[in-house]
Structures are given as C-alpha cells and as structure tokens.
C-alpha cells in the first residue's frame, strides 16, 4: 500500500520553475532519502506536498485520501534554522506543540498530553532538559527536541527537512536509529538529506531530484553513478573522487 502519492506537482517561484512534473508513490513502511544538489527543490517539494506553499499544479494523496483529511497522520520537522530559537519557551513546551493538532482548536492542553510530551523527550535522551530555555540548547539538542516533537505527533508519515544538519555524530546516530525503528513499526519517513556517504546505510528508498525527479525506488537500484551524474552534473566528479559512497571502492 502506498502511504503517499504525489501526482504532477509543479511549483513556480518568481516565474522560474522550482519543481516540474514531480510524480512518485512512497510505499508504507519505507525510509526514503530525498537527494539532490543545492537548489534542486528538495525542501520546496516537501513544502508543496504539505501545502505550505502554493503549487501551480499537482495532487497529493495520503493513504488514498486528500491530505487535508489526514493532517493528524502527518508529522513535519522543518529545518532547524527556520524557527526563532530565542522564542520565550522551554523544550517541553516545544514538544507539546506536536500535540496541538490532536488537541484541536479552543481546547486546553491536558495532563496526558504533557505526560506524553515528557515521555517523548525521554525517548530522545532529553528528559533532564525539559525546563531548559530553548536558546540554551546546543544544535544537536535542539534537533533532538524537534525529533521528540515529531514523536509526540504520533504520525504515520514523517517529512524531515535536513534533520542531520549541524548535529553531532552521536545525535545523528541516535536519530537514524529512531527513524529505523519507526520504519519497522510501519511508519513511512521521508528525509531531505545532504551527505551522499551515508545514503546507502540510512535509506531503503531514494528520490533523486533536480527540479524534476531523476529516479525513484529502492536505493540499490536508484543510487547509481549514472543517476547521480544526471542529478548533480559536473559537481559530482569532485564528490566522487574523494569518496566511496557508491560502494565501488576508491
């Protein structure tokens, strides 16, 4: 069963096409890396799918329903740099925000929501920071708080925009372990990812993107030199010389 189906999405910024004719379907219980060079439209794709920005065409369905009807099954982790970390609030409160969709408008936060948020913080090893003002957390800790917030959303599909950007190695390891647990629980996860070195070990599916999809499918079939060449163009040869991410040695 497909958790997410994207049909013909196009997005235009200032009359320049940012995404053209994007089509793909993501099977339930998969962990997908969205890969592509800077400016390929990776974040734009997530935002367009979630209807955070207007699209010039296209349709999105979640478990065969229009997205609007399934909002509470969707979890979103924006880029850490996109929010104001000087905002007057603490870590627990940020995690609680993940519950707002379930709590609903005009309703008060209940004790069980607070308990659940606290449990989520504990799951990412941040329970002792619950009362900490968010600007006093390190980059890795802030990202863990975001992950705890995603956990508290208790969603079936997660969209994460560069969750590993600027985090320490220990946090990245803990995070990817958690994402793989989600996958085993039947959740579907899509991650905008930059580090080509780790694609093979992290993701079972890949979407190679450069304004339009280059390839989508299981990682071992899509994450190939030819496809990367198509997505990255000339920039790839420099990357390839220094790394062995394609598993070809060297």
């Amino acid at each position: 069963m497909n958790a997410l189906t994207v049909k013909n999405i196009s997005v235009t910024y200032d009359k320049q096409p940012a995404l053209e004719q994007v089509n793909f379907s993501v099977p339930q219980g998969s962990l997908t890396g969205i890969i592509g060079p800077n400016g390929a439209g990776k974040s734009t794709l997530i935002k367009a799918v979630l209807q955070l920005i207007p699209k010039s065409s296209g349709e999105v369905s979640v478990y065969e329903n229009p997205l609007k009807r399934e909002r509470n099954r969707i979890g979103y982790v924006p880029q850490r740099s996109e929010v104001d970390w000087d905002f007057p609030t603490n870590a627990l409160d940020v995690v609680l925000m993940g519950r707002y969709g379930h709590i609903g408008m005009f309703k008060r936060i209940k004790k069980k929501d607070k308990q659940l948020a606290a449990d989520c913080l504990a799951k990412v090893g941040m329970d002792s920071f619950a009362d900490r003002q968010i600007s006093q957390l390190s980059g890795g800790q802030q990202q863990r708080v975001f992950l705890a917030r995603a956990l508290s959303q208790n969603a079936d599909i997660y969209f994460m925009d560069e969750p590993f950007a600027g985090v320490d190695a220990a946090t990245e390891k803990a995070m990817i372990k958690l994402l793989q647990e989600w996958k085993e629980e039947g959740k579907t996860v899509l991650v905008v990812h930059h580090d080509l070195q780790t694609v093979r070990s992290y993701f079972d599916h890949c979407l190679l993107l450069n304004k339009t999809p280059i390839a989508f499918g299981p990682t071992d079939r899509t994450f190939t030199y030819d496809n990367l060449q198509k997505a990255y163009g000339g920039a790839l040869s420099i990357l390839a010389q220094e790394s062995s991410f394609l598993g070809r040695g060297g």
Partner: protein
Amino acid sequence: MTYGAWIILTGVLVGVTCGITGALLVLRKMAMIADAISHTVLLGIVLAFLVTQSLNGLPMLIGAGAVGILTAILVQWLDSSGVQSGAAIGVVFTSLFALGVVMLSFIGDGVHLDVEHALMGEIAYVPWDTWTYAGINLGPKAVWMLGGVFILNLTIILLFFKEFKVSTFDPQLAASLGIPILFLHYLLMGMVSFSTVASFDSVGAILVVAMLIVPGATAYLLTDHFGWMIALSAIIGALASIIGYGFAVWLDVSIAGSMAVSCGLLFTLAFFLSPKHGVVSKWWKRKSFRKSMATS
C-alpha cells in the same frame, strides 16, 4: 471618581490593551507594521465618520479594523511582488495616512477630530467626554471603548493561545497541523487596529506605538515564558502609565508624553538590569567565567 483617577484608569487600560497585543507583535518581529497601522487607522476613522456623521465607538472600530487589515494586506502584497519590505511599509503607511489627512478636511470645524488630535491625543480631556445613558453619567467614553477592546483582545488571545504560540514560533509546523496561520495574522492586525483606535483619544497615533512596542520589548528581556511575557507586557504598560501620570503631575508636563517616556525608562532598566538577558548580568557572567577559567 476624581479627575486624576479617570486619567490613571484610562492610561492603565491603554497600557494593558496595547501591552498584550504588542507582546505578540514583538515576538513576530512586526513592530514596524504597528507603526504603519497606528497611522493608517486615521483613514478608517475619517471614513467611518463620513458614513455615520458621528464619532461613535463601533463604526470607528469597524472602519479602523478594515483599514488596518487593508494596510497589512497591501504591505504583504507589495512585499511579495518584489518591493523591499521596509519600502513597502513606508509606501502604504504614508499614502493611506495622507489620504486620511486629506479626507479629514471634508469634515467641518465643529467636529472634535483634527490631525493634531489624531497624532498626539489629549488624555487630559478624556474625563470630560463622558457617556450619558438614560440621564445617568456612565463615565468617560474612552474608558468604555478601551475596556471593551481590552476584553475583546484578551478573549482572542486566550481563545487562540496555543495557536498564536505555535504560529509565532514555527509557522511551518503550524500550517502543517492545519492551523489557519493567515487568519491569525490578520486577526492580530485587527487587534492592533482596535487597540490603536481605542487609544487614539488619549495618546494619539505616535505615542500608541510606544505603548504597543516598548512594554513587549521590555517583557521579552525579563522572561523565558510565552504566557508570562504577555502578562508582564501588560503589567509594564500599566506601570508606565501610572509612573508617567506621576511625573506629569509633578513636573506639569504632557501626560501622554511622560507615559511613553516612562515606557522607555522601564525598558532601559530592563535592558541593563534584567537578571537573565540584561547587559550587567551578561557582563558579570562573562567576568566570573573568565575568573573560573583562570583559576582552573
């Protein structure tokens, strides 16, 4: 109630009404749009007067709310069509305000509405402009209007407390949760317009900006809690009004002016002396950190 008590009550109501609304503006980094709206609502007031031929509260609120939201929409629209955002605010702000000034000249001399009054207000006259219903004197009109707008704004903030919080901190998440962030934005713009109109008579368009922005900016330095920041902002606004009235009586100077100056004084105090974010405590922390590094 005595003359002085009515003025203090008016000032305190301006302080708390603008305080709770302004706290949200400061967090949303929208101080400049408050400046714009506080001026353009003049157009709304004039339009409301031309239609109803009276300076009644409700039509004025509706007119000001509509022009306030129009201001926000125009700024947003110019901004997204490539006009630099500071310039967008400047263009909309001055054009609509000037239109208000021009239309003001259609209104006869007998009416208590002119540019100077709109810009500066005169809180000293507030206690004399009373509302009489069925022969009973119910107190100054401005107090009723401010009280009404305060209750309205407070109700809106309490009703949408969670939604304002998440859409200010993380609008993307808020939108993905299905929270109507655009509606909240324009709702806040409406609240700013109402606060401005209600405060017009007493402090005018220029000083209302001080009451909207400075208490919020001061509260921001004093707390790390969203709800407390809104409450503190109201308390600071009220306190500034009381202190300001004291200064005005003592030195025999403009009441509204010294209220705004008191806001500035409270901000300065917080800026230097706030236990968490103040300049002095930061300096002290750096110094003791260096000392501990040196001894270890």
